[in-house]
């Protein structure tokens, strides 16, 4: 199949609903597994860890949309970015809820003390806070209201979130020197952010050589 045909398929009406269901499946499975005692000896730990894992996976997915659409010449992929972004927030919120509910017994005092005391929790919580304005401004009206440039600048916060998420995961595994999975996520996210950096730098160089012509947006996306 050539890229124009893939492009046409991606524009089809079933793609978004299918993605929506697909991204929801891990959460549904976790609910089902918890209800039917399939999460092993420590279901609370399993839920906290799985929702964290899925947040990282969604983060990798959403950040790979722009590079993939450029590299494969499939602009239609960008249509799916917002939904993936909202799923990052969805799994991050579930992750936070599982921690707050199962580990902290929803005691706000305990949670606040825990966040203040433990840098590893603070980093994770900050990442969640930074994601919140992105989720809140994900609708079309917000883009118009903020203006495209400002909206895009705000949404570049996701790069900071990616860094914090990896740091949070690294810290969590640090005491046990168990970095294999951390390395996987760090390299994927590193490559995706590196690609953007490389484009920004080479874009600026192109702009500089084209003095007099209209400045081009490097298009971080």
């Amino acid at each position, binding site marked *: 199949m050539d890229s124009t045909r893939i492009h046409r398929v991606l524009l089809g009406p079933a793609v978004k609903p299918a993605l929506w269901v697909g991204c929801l499946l891990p959460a549904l499975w976790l609910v089902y597994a918890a209800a039917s005692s399939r999460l*092993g*000896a420590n279901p609370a730990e399993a*839920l906290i860890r799985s929702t964290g894992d899925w947040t990282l996976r969604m983060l990798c997915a959403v950040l790979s949309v722009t590079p993939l659409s450029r590299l494969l010449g499939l602009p239609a992929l960008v249509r799916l970015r917002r939904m993936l972004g909202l799923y990052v927030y969805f799994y991050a919120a579930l992750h936070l809820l599982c921690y707050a509910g199962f580990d902290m017994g929803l005691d706000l005092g305990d949670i606040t003390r825990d966040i203040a005391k433990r840098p590893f929790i603070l980093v994770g919580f900050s990442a969640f806070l930074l994601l919140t304005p992105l989720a809140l401004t994900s609708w079309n009206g917000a883009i118009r209201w903020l203006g495209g440039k400002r909206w895009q600048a705000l949404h570049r916060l996701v790069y900071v979130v990616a860094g914090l998420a990896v740091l949070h995961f690294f810290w969590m595994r640090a*005491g046990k*020197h168990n970095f294999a999975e951390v390395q996987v996520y760090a390299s994927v996210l590193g490559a995706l952010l590196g690609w953007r950096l490389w484009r920004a730098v080479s874009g600026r160089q192109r702009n500089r050589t084209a003095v007099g012509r209209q400045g081009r947006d490097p298009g971080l996306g």
Partner: protein
Amino acid sequence: MLIKTRDDGFVHPRSSEITPEGVYRQRRDLMRLMAGGAAGALLASWAARDARAQMRPVKLPAQKSPVAGAVTLEKPTDYKDATSYNNFYEFGLDKSDPARNAHTLQTTPWTVAVEGLVKKPGRYALEDLLRRSALEERIYRLRCVEGWSMVIPWAGYSLAELIRKVEPLGSARYVEFVTLADRQTMPYVSSSVLNWPYVEGLRMDEAMHPLTLLAFGMYGEVLPKQNGAPVRLVAPWKYGFKSGKSLVKIRFTETQPATAWNVAAPQEYGFYSNVNPNVDHPRWSQATERRIGEDGLFSRRRKTLMFNGYEAQVGQLYAGMDLKKYY
């Protein structure tokens, strides 16, 4: 025609018709496996793995222990949980890995070397160790440094029994426990997570304490491989990682042993590692714990007890010590 019913409670089934409990439990397990089996061949290998993990080992009878504090009345953790949720890094870093991977461990023949500052050094065969003293059943709380706990019925005898027989010299102040590190049978021994072999240690008075157990069995059977077969240590007032599994060497030393986790992350894991709700791990609180199989998803974590509830028995070992400094 007389229609017999069993409703009146007087007509009982013949004893031959009653399905033994073990059999119907197996059937339930089988049904559960089959219900999942529809999902395909992937699950079949899972089932095989579960079956392997569920194979019950040889019986190992033991008498109730007379040692003070050695038998808690709390409900023992389900055998399945205790044998499928393990930290045994030689067999994998995930807690479900040991049950899956430890079947390669060779436990016969097995010898434990006694070395160092001791009058009677030597290599002791497992059979000799088993005969050294009467086996006692001890039901201990087990508190993992990660914040979860279990209640395990162990079978073994006080390590002190062995120590007395090998006669340590007056200069011996610590006991070092070296565990098996066999690249052939332990897939993660080549990983860089820890320095292998896994070494643990106790101060001499801790090692001589009657609660410090040399364990050969649990739940009335020999130790499953993922739980540290064929012989391991259990020091119930310390975090679980202090209790080395699959011991191959016991060494008496004058200086404090360099223990595995203390070497790997000294700011997180001290030499003593006594269970202490007032001294937090740098990344999480130790004030509470989740009892595996008991504390449901929505119940609050229970309070962790000082010295894991063994303060009356072991508190005097640390009289005058700053436990925040010697964590």
